[in-house]
């Protein structure tokens, strides 16, 4: 294969991988924003806690038992999803629920505080070093010839993301809970009047958002092979950028934004400069907010007095 073409393909595939991970995190942002109109600043930390839980549970099982890697992967994924969802719900109860009618700035400051708490909790309870994460995804034999182009982990990430998206779309479009979520997002008071328990809807949203973030955390840990307490910050910011890029509050928008961001980062790092790969995300954020603040698929919000 022509080396230039191969390089391009590698970049595109790594962009898709990145985009998938961003999408898994961005969904949580966009869903929470849609319902309580708050940027859940601590969402990146929930993703980090998912990755850490998987590392701990997976590590204990790897060291003390003889289970096969796939079983361990399954157990640690379930544990990560459970714990992330539990942290997400607790976080909402402690830091956001008492502030539901407070000015948005106050709620945002509380969210920043929560993000600091979770980061430093993991730092103090575990370690500040990067911990190696042994990949638990075995290599598929049919992929071995093309290994330099697409690794098994990358393929698993893309497929999983696709499945999660499909599941979420069905959930929101066709279930009772999905309907309640859409109603709450449109008008909280009206939703209450027609008998929707808003607190349950909000809790459910946090569960789903945190669970998808946890899946993202476990996958990225398998992919990069190491994690520390700080991975949530940058991932959180980038996923936020993706959510804003697509139009915050819009689920297909978050997915589109994530892939655009992943591609830009990957191609930008590959062809322009890798020193600034994080700056691309910020640059995109600033440009989109200046020129199209409602995002690619978002609706314009008209402010009324």
């Amino acid at each position, binding site marked *: 294969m022509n080396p230039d073409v191969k390089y391009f393909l590698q970049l595109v595939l790594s962009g898709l991988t990145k985009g998938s991970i961003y999408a898994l995190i961005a969904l949580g942002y966009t869903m929470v924003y849609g319902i309580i109109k708050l940027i859940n600043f601590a969402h990146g930390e929930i993703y980090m*806690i998912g990755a850490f839980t998987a590392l701990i549970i997976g590590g*204990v099982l790897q060291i003390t038992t003889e289970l096969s890697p796939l079983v361990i992967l399954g157990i640690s994924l379930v544990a990560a999803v459970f714990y992330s969802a*539990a942290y997400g719900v607790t976080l909402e109860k402690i830091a956001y629920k*008492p502030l539901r009618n407070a000015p948005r700035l106050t709620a945002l400051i509380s969210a920043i505080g929560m993000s600091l708490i979770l980061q430093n909790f993991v730092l103090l*309870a575990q370690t500040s070093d990067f911990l*190696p994460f042994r990949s638990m995804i075995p290599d598929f034999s049919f992929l071995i010839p093309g290994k330099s182009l697409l690794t098994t982990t990358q393929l698993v990430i893309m497929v999983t993301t696709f499945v999660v998206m499909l599941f979420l779309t069905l959930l929101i479009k066709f279930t009772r809970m999905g309907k309640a979520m859409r109603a709450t997002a449109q008008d909280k008071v009206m939703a209450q009047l027609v008998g929707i328990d808003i607190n349950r809807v909000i809790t459910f949203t946090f569960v789903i958002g945190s669970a998808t973030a946890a899946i993202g955390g476990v996958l990225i840990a398998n992919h990069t092979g190491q994690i520390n307490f700080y991975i949530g910050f940058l991932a959180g910011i980038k996923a936020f950028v993706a959510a804003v890029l697509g139009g915050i509050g819009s689920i297909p928008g978050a997915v589109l934004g994530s892939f655009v961001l992943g591609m830009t980062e990957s191609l930008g790092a590959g062809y322009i400069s890798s020193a600034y790969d994080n700056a691309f995300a910020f640059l995109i954020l*600033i440009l989109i*907010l*200046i020129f199209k603040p409602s995002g690619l698929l978002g609706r314009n919000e008209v402010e009324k007095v």
Partner: protein
Amino acid sequence: MNRLLSEAKKSLITSLWFMVLTFPLLVIKVNTRDNTVVWRWMNLLWVAIGAFGLSWIWRRMLERREKGNTRIQSSAWREKVTVFASNRKFQISGLSTLALVVVLFPFLVKFYQVGIVTSALMFVILGLGLNIVIGYGGLLHLGYAAFYAVGAYSYGLMYLYWGLPFWVALPFGAVSGALFGLVIGFPVLRLRGDYLAIVTLAFGEIIRLLLENLSGFTKGPEGIAQIPRPAFFTKLSLQGATTYLYFIAIALVLLAIFVIKRLEDSRVGRALEAMRDDEIAAQAMGIDLTKAKLTTFALGAVWAGMVGVVLAGKTTYINPGSFTLMESVMILVAVVLGGTGSIPGVILGAFLVTLIPEYFRALADYRMLMFGVALVVMSIFRPQGIIPRVRKRYTVGGGKE
């Protein structure tokens, strides 16, 4: 009795929930490098006890908040303080004692202590600067450390390339801070609230990345070293320079307080507050929002620019690592903790944020955790801060309170 039991049951449930919640992270410690697992069961006990007690206190505080009786108490208390503080004799004697202590301080204590207090004073100025943006303008700025970096680097680079001294760099730092404020303010004019917070955060990170990566110009991550301390006619000893910087910081604090006090009652200051309270209404009253927002950013950034120059002169070494998001967050904590919009509040907040970790070394590791807790607790229970702002009130009949 019944009530006590039901409270105990609630706390017990919370306690159990937190035991489940913290189990993997607090109890198990896996080292995936050398394959060892440490089980720390004792931690579970601490969590159980802690969660039980704290959840009890938490619910009581929420109840009190619902009733809203804290406000009445604090205002009665406040009344007494105001009466006492407005006594002319007390004011004069209080202020002159304070002035005496401030002037004599560096000669009474070890110069190591002077250095610490100077850092705290620098933080006070940063807090006051950010307070203009958050407290008056109502714009949550999470990239404030970038302005600080701009100030520090303007001295660093001016010294590096042209050999210019501290006193030339100080006004230049202020100007470049303000210019950067305008540069950042311009693209974010249309944004408010949470979007603004994230974009300013992004700007802060971009500036840090630029400082790190333009290594030909800024010396990159290793930073600029051997920047001279400010000279008082001749070059000062380390001790002399420390004392000198202390007085420079004091002077800047006084200047900041004076300017902000004047700003509060000025046309510009009132325009900013109107914008904070309601942008649309302010616009309808004829306030130019563009101008008001840009003014906010520039006025806030000036102080960070100046403190940046002082920092470069104090530490003689600067690198991009000193201007991370954590720095911005710490300044934010100082403002929120003390009281947004309140000058004495912000001063107290800045001292708390810098001096507590300094004098309680054992707590230093828990510093950021405590700041996080402070942000959440303050937001929920006392959003106005420790020393809330007193706004001028006008009563019908011309009487001014």
